[in-house]
């Protein structure tokens, strides 16, 4: 993180994303975004709307929750 913004993000875990390559686009989308719930949710939602990516059982708010958790760990 740089200040309160994401400078670099790597997402990993047990989930499905169709198409799989979209994970890299999601990571790029998040770079520069402020680590704050509203801003993150808007960025993630925009990513879903513009790409048509599917992630069964995982919703935009789940990514936001995970990012906020990781960011609070980094701040400590």
């Amino acid at each position, binding site marked *: 993180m740089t200040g309160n913004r994401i400078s670099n993000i*790597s*997402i*990993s*875990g*047990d*989930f*499905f*994303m*169709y*198409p*799989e390559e979209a*994970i890299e686009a999601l990571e790029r989308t998040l770079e520069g975004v402020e680590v704050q719930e509203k801003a993150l949710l808007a960025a993630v939602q925009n990513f879903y709307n513009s790409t048509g990516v*599917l992630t*069964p*059982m995982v919703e935009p708010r789940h990514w936001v929750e995970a990012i906020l958790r990781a960011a609070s760990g980094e701040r400590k």
Partner: protein
Amino acid sequence: MNSAIVINTTKERKDTGSEWRLLPLRTDDAFTSMAIDEALLKLNAGCKSPNTIRFWRWQPSTVSIGCFQSVEREVDLEVARRYGVDVVRRITGGGAVFHDHDGELTYSVVCRQGDVPDDIIESYMLICGGLVRGFGNLGFRAEFKPVNDVHANGKKISGSAQTRRWGSVLQHGTVLISPDIRKMFELLKVSREKISDKFIASVYERVTTVEREIGRKPTFEEVREAMIAGFEDSLNVKLHEGGLTDEELELTKKLRPKYASDEWLRKR
């Protein structure tokens, strides 16, 4: 209602009753198996391979991780080295799985995307329906649990993962026959306390095996036969035995080094 849509889909498919290829049971190392699956998917998408179902085993036993997982986070590589267990990254998403050579049968289904429902969960349901019926053939009731599991008696007995690329679908997954659960938790990164007897006992509350459900360890061929009939029924296809083509074997050989590489394994 989702279930109603799926029943309709199945009914529509009943009229087609197409022929798919069934490959013989194979035992390979993880890298070859992953390469075969990708070769089948690629060539099916290019209309050079028929829709195919195969069953296979892992030699040596292997931990596979989902394509989005971090190997460092999920697998104790030191324990894997000690047991001689391979570690491989799949091209499908989902979680880490311990594939026990002696206790697990894996299946792969490769077909054109148009041969399964567009909706991802419905397509899992259709393909996992083959397993559900297969377990029925072995003598016990099982049911599909979205997104990608099959449960028996409320416990997980099979997990699957699907990818869709180039116009075709690959779904592969596990049939837990009699895996070594303790070894599984030594290999997968869980905290020390979790490998306690108490945790292992709690896993037995959540995971079951064919051996446990029928009270004896069946042969791999017996489970395979039950699943073949299950898939024919669920997919409404007729399976015809056939081998890998020269083109498939050649592409497998080309793809294998990727799966065996450190670069691929440590991608995330």
